[in-house]
């Protein structure tokens, strides 16, 4: 295990506090896409980022936002690299992140647990507006690849559900 220096921890906090461009209530740390921050030389930092989806166009915006945040903190040379393995999972979204998603009107993904482990109970997807568990699927793909479109049969409001991945 690589231990972080105090400086790396500080830079990691700054990079992790950058907001997701698509879901601007969530930080990159809460989304679980920040994989590491390494000081590779004087004034030089490398940040590892993992995409939620392979084709997620938000990665480019995230990279430039991280670069800007670290530049503002006085790091002149920032490079952001994309790493694929281990693959990101919706289980990487923090508890706080899930709470914020629901507050924002997006039903959070249900926990999946480790692959090959015990099969979790299939929990109902709760309407983020009225809290009813009586919801139906309208479309498997919604405004972005990571969301499905559902409708609440109680309050009749449509809403996005962050799909389990």
């Amino acid at each position, binding site marked *: 295990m690589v231990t972080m220096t105090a400086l790396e921890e500080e830079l990691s906090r700054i990079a992790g506090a950058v907001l997701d461009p698509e879901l601007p209530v969530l930080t990159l740390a809460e989304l679980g896409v920040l994989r590491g921050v390494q000081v590779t030389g004087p004034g030089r930092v490398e940040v590892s980022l993992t*995409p939620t989806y392979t084709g997620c166009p938000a990665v480019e915006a995230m990279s430039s936002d991280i670069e800007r945040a670290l530049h503002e903190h006085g790091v002149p040379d920032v490079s952001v690299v994309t790493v694929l393995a*281990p*693959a990101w999972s919706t289980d990487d979204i923090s508890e706080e992140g899930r709470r914020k998603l629901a507050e924002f009107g997006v039903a959070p993904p249900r926990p999946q647990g480790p692959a090959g482990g015990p099969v979790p109970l299939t929990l109902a997807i709760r309407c983020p507006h009225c809290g009813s568990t009586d919801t139906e699927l309208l479309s498997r*793909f919604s405004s972005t690849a990571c969301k499905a479109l559902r409708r609440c049969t109680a309050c009749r409001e449509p809403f996005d559900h962050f799909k389990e*991945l």
Partner: protein
Amino acid sequence: MSSTPDTHETATFTGAALALGDDALILSHRLGEWAGSAPVLEEEVALANIALDLLGQARILLSLVGDEDELAYLREERSFRNVQLAEQPNGDFAHTIARQLYFSTYQHLLYGRLASGDGPFAGLAAKAVKEVAYHRDHAEHWTLRLGDGTTESHERMQRACDALWRYTGELFQPVEGLDVDHAAMESAWLASMTDILGKATLTVPSGPRTGAWAAGAGRQGLHTESFGRMIAEMQHLHRSHPGATW
């Protein structure tokens, strides 16, 4: 410099990356052609999202072996290594769904196997297999709705499944550099088709998938008639304005 084995290894890796990358790129472009003309808004969004996932795979795979833009926009028809199924025209919505059903089931099986190995594509496959599961799910649900729907939707779905059947043998021709059991994959694919088409009250097509009457030399660079027109449209902007950016 030690030459032959390394050179061969590089060529094998390049060939495999192009095969996987071109499948994703070409199918992504076909799906993108639905933008603005899908039957309902939800499908417009769904097909575009599936296309985006595939484009993401293509970018990663092509970047492994060269410049992604040069490979996508400057190669000639004969240099593309995608299976002929991926390039087949969209046809009606049933044709697009049949193509999705055949392809996403194959891709899910392939990526699942690549992900559990330790080859150079394991990382990408482990990521993409979870996305492709949603593509397959989408295609299966539409197959059920259309097959077990109205008389017309049933007929159209059957026609589409029959028409594209001859392109499915090529999916299981071994690709050098992909360490998977293609024969076992084909059995699993056929079992899956028998199951889903049966549930959709459709008949498993009986036409040839292999042999003289089957199609499929895309991996060798031979493509069907509509492919040239498709890449002409795909490459037009880049070729007319080299290096253009948004």
